[in-house]
């Protein structure tokens, strides 16, 4: 996406993140650094803490201990927050509104100027121009995923967080998403995505990290290492 190029690219650092729900540890002292421009695939079984880590990164969940820090290649304000995009299992859009209405709503909330033009361009980008005036309720799973991704891309995120983005997509949808993520990565967007096993999407990753029972157990940037992390955790 041509608008994603930004002078400042952002990194994200998790420092000793702990998340407890009662006595249950969802995350145990996770320390992880995702450098600017990296695309990290998070692998792990259900319940390993992937979703929790992503939601903490998105600042939707408070960690019980530890902190999340953002860095940019442009020196300055330590309290600077990058533009975050987040795609989850849920679509996070309103079924009772049309695709266009949803995107315009979020664009206006985020204070994006020329909301309508940007939304039209985005709809074209994700291939939803013909269905833009249809209620999201009438969309297939794949189309809803496209609206969700469009919503996340509204702000031209510097850090893109995705929680199992391929779920429910057919091979064509997966290929489309992988292509999209590839161009985002090439434009310098930092990405952290949780995945189940290898797929067209995991090909985009430059590094793989495996979580098990809330802790980091493997971390690799080489082909073989990444493959082993992704396939083992596909179980």
């Amino acid at each position, binding site marked *: 996406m041509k608008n994603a190029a930004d002078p400042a690219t952002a990194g994200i650092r998790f420092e000793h993140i702990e998340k407890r729900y009662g006595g249950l540890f969802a995350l145990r002292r996770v320390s992880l650094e995702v450098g600017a421009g990296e695309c990290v695939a998070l692998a792990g079984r259900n319940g390993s803490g992937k979703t929790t880590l992503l939601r903490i990164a998105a600042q939707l969940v408070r960690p019980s201990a530890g902190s999340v820090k953002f860095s940019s290649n442009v020196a300055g304000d330590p309290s600077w927050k990058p533009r975050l995009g987040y795609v989850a299992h849920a679509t996070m*859009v309103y079924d009772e509104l049309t695709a266009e209405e949803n995107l315009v709503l979020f664009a206006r*909330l*985020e*204070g994006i100027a020329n909301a309508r033009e940007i939304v039209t361009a985005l709809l074209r980008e994700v291939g939803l121009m013909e269905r833009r005036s249809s209620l999201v309720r009438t969309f297939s799973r794949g189309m809803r995923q496209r609206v969700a991704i469009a919503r996340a891309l509204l702000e031209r995120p510097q850090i893109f967080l995705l929680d199992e983005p391929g779920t429910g997509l057919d091979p064509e949808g997966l290929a489309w998403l992988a292509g999209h993520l590839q161009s985002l990565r090439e434009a310098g967007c930092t990405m952290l995505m949780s995945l189940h096993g290898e797929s067209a999407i995991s090909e985009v990753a430059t590094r793989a990290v495996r979580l098990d029972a809330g802790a980091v157990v493997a971390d690799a940037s080489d082909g073989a290492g990444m493959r082993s992390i992704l396939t083992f955790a596909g179980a």
Partner: protein
Amino acid sequence: MSLLSNTGVLLGKELRTEFRSRELLTTTVIFILMVVVLFSFTFDPTSTDSRRFGAGLLWLAFLFAASLMLQPCFLREQTNDTLSALRLAVSDPFAILLAKLAANTLFLLVTELLMLPVFSVLYNVPVLPVLGRLLLVFFLGSLGVSIAGTALSAISAQARMRELLLPLLLLPLLTPVLVASTQVTAGLLDVAPFMQWKGIGFVATFDVVFLTALWLFGEYLLEE
């Protein structure tokens, strides 16, 4: 974006969603209609009795209707986790609450205004002479109900048995609004109508106090 503009955008969304389906308004109006008719069986609805009990009947009907109407407020944000999307998009989470309470106040007022002529006709109580002052107490009372109701709806949406829980939490909390609004309304529906500004004062105070509390603690209500 600023608090006010975010609130405006979100209020627009709430209104658009509701006017598209009109589910909430329709069911609330029918509910109040049923209550008003059923209440007539519990006492002899001649004019003098109506003036004495009418105010209480109206406000009880509004309160019960509100505790039903407020249920979907945050539940509908859970369906697709749109609450998270809103939290990510807005700079001040108070905008989310402010928009919802404004929408709820509006919906309540609309149903109250639709009910007023029906009540007036069925119970033979003239309301036109005091309409302006009646609207004032309806507005302030509905605002109070919405402020407390929106906050408690956010709380109960995360608990079990939420449909029963919301009225359980809401009704005792709204006692000052019920007591003061009923008193003021009773004065206005009297044969010789009179305005009780002290009652208005109580309701207005409730509104200010709870709006401030919502502003101070609202972001914690939306926390995950």
